[in-house]
């Protein structure tokens, strides 16, 4: 199989086969980061630009390391240093980058649809590193990859995503990804943070974490942003933690072999307590580790990689 896509904008429009192909390809990239010399020449001579209009440490670093380990030349542009503060449009910024013959553009933007817009005006592949509340496809792919490694299957698995679903691109991409691979997804949080029509995405809705928890194979927690407080989505962090925070005590209701995930960064003591975050059920650091392999696979496939998944590395 050859990966036919020119961009990675979201998981909504990827088929199950395409997602599985990316995950299979990623398998062969894990080992590279375990070598003493963590570099392969697959993208030597290619230029990747990481254009970030929102602050990011984890995702940007992960992309940058993935690019460097593929031997690509990388440039990071963050919103504070980009030309947009001078009133330049997104299109002009991107067109200028393209004029410098870049090979892949990785973009994060607060406006949903911005990567789709760029993909429509640029000739080079565009990777969505998170757009507004829409999608964050590489995060979902690394979450899928982590579960594949841990549990080896998706069919019949039950995933619970807990927290701010309304503003979460991670939740949306994971709903698409997990349901396409055969898992069942339930989102959970206060009604103010569950968007309308969530069922139409293929997820069930719960407002009661304690009732949901015993049935879950995978528990994914989302970061609660304190700025939502001023918008009256919930009254206090204390009350949020009381209703939806995952504590060691609450985890007694869960299956023993439940897998706990979090895309980071953590609000310790709000959505998750340290004993759970650092406990044996947590795969939070594995997610970060596999993020590199998954992003290497995505860049390799979009950058024109023609080897098959089996012998990619």
């Amino acid at each position, binding site marked *: 199989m050859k990966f036919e896509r020119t961009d990675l904008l979201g998981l*909504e429009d990827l088929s199950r086969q395409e997602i599985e192909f990316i995950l299979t390809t990623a398998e062969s990239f894990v080992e590279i980061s375990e070598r003493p010399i963590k570099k392969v020449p697959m993208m030597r001579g290619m230029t990747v630009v990481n254009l970030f209009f929102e602050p990011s440490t984890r995702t940007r670093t992960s992309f940058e390391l993935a690019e460097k380990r593929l031997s690509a030349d990388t440039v990071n542009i963050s919103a504070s240093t980009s030309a947009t503060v001078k009133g330049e*449009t*997104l*299109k002009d910024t991107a067109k200028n980058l393209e004029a410098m013959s870049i090979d892949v553009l990785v973009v994060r*933007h*607060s*406006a*949903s*649809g*911005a990567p*789709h*817009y760029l993909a429509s005006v640029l000739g080079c592949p565009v990777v969505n590193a998170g*757009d*507004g*509340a*829409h*999608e964050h496809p590489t995060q979902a792919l690394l979450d899928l990859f982590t579960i594949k490694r841990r549990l080896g299957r998706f069919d019949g698995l039950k995933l619970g995503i807990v927290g701010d679903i309304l503003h979460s*691109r991670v939740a*949306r991409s994971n709903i698409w990804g997990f349901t396409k691979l055969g898992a069942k997804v339930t989102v959970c949080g206060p009604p103010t943070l569950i*968007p*309308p*029509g*969530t069922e*139409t*995405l293929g997820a069930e809705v719960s407002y009661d974490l304690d009732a949901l928890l015993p049935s879950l194979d995978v528990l994914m927690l989302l970061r609660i942003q304190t700025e939502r407080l001023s918008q009256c989505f919930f009254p206090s962090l204390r009350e949020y933690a009381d209703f939806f925070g995952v504590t060691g005590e609450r985890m007694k209701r869960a299956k023993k072999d439940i897998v706990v995930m979090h895309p980071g960064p953590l609000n310790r003591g709000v959505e998750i307590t340290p004993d759970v975050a650092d406990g044996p059920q947590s795969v939070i650091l594995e997610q970060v580790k596999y993020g590199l392999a998954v992003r290497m696979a995505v860049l390799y496939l979009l950058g024109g990689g023609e080897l098959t998944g089996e012998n990619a590395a």
Partner: protein
Amino acid sequence: MKTLLKGGRVVDPSQDLDAVCDVLLEDGRVAVVGAAAQAGGAEVIDAKGLVVCPGLIDMHVHLREPGREDEETIESGTRAAVAGGFTAVASMPNTEPPIEGDEGVKFVLAKAHEAGLARVYPIAAVTQGLKGELLAEIGSAVRAGAAGVSDDGKPVENSALMRRALEYSRMLGVPVISHSEDAALSGKGVMNEGPVSTLLGLKGIPDESEEIAVARDIALARLASGRLHIAHASTARALELVLSAKQLGLKVTCEVTPHHFTLTDEAVKEYGTNTKMKPPLRSERDLCALRNALRTGAVDAIASDHAPHSAEEKDQEYDVAPFGIVGLETSLGLALTELYRKRILSLVDLVRLMSTNPAAILGTGGGSLKPGKPADVTLFDPEKEWTVDPSRFYSKSRNTPFSGWQLKGKAVSVIVDGRVLMRDGEMIGEQGETS
């Protein structure tokens, strides 16, 4: 000067007329409808196969002058109006600076006169500077020729002020046209709130944002015994509220736009910014309710909310692009294709909603082919098939979601004040130098 419109299907709701006959225009007035024996010396326009109706009126357009002449001028907008089959438009006051008081109204009327194309009925600001704080000089505006008052583009949020506007305008005989929206509830929303906004991760504007405001405005119209016109009604319940207000005998009317009776929020799925407008494209349920309300006579007018925006401003991220689309040159085609073709409106009802009723709501005259009425006439071919090509628009702006659409039905000839401005699809004259 005489013009004879020969052998067309004359459709005039004001006299319950739908028959093949002649119309004779003389000295800027309708002279005869029927057999026009005394037509010697008249310019003859063959209207065979065409519908001849009182000039269409688009009671909700934005002409952008003064302030954004790069997007539209009164001249380009009224030329687009003629091309779209309209003999008159009502222009909203949210220009830079806003059209307010007698001076603003006189400016618009002078520019429209200079252009010599479609008539312009200026709508003047309700509140000073459209700021929603103090009542503007709406009496002076009406004396100078304003046909209504509105802060369109945004609501009058202060209920006490809206009450005063509805009371005060009673002595002026003009409607208060309301952009009914609860601004706080709309927040930073950019599209309809529902499954599609959830899918796309775009901030939603709920139906209730419109319905709360419509309910409030109707309550204030009752309190003030005022005349209220709801602009661009887009939801099922907003229309129910208007209908129940009418049944109570309140002086409440409403309009709907072609894009709201043609498209749903599904159209937003590619993030194309020509699907971004206020109110937003709603759900299938709302679209069905709009069509049903049109069928049952609960809607008073079809208006385009023609809102020109520059290509640069629309060619951006969805969140950043401005609200609004152009409509003057697609409105009639969409109404004929989506409503007449689909048996939702008869031709008589279509003309009622696009001519007779708008004239009555604005109190401008026109909207009728009775002898003695102004010689404003639209001739359209309900069978003509055409493709929407924005590059051929007379409007200065191209921001339409209907590019490439196949429509059936198009204006062919347009006569304003007895002057033939478009004939057989060809615009006549430039800069108002019309015969």
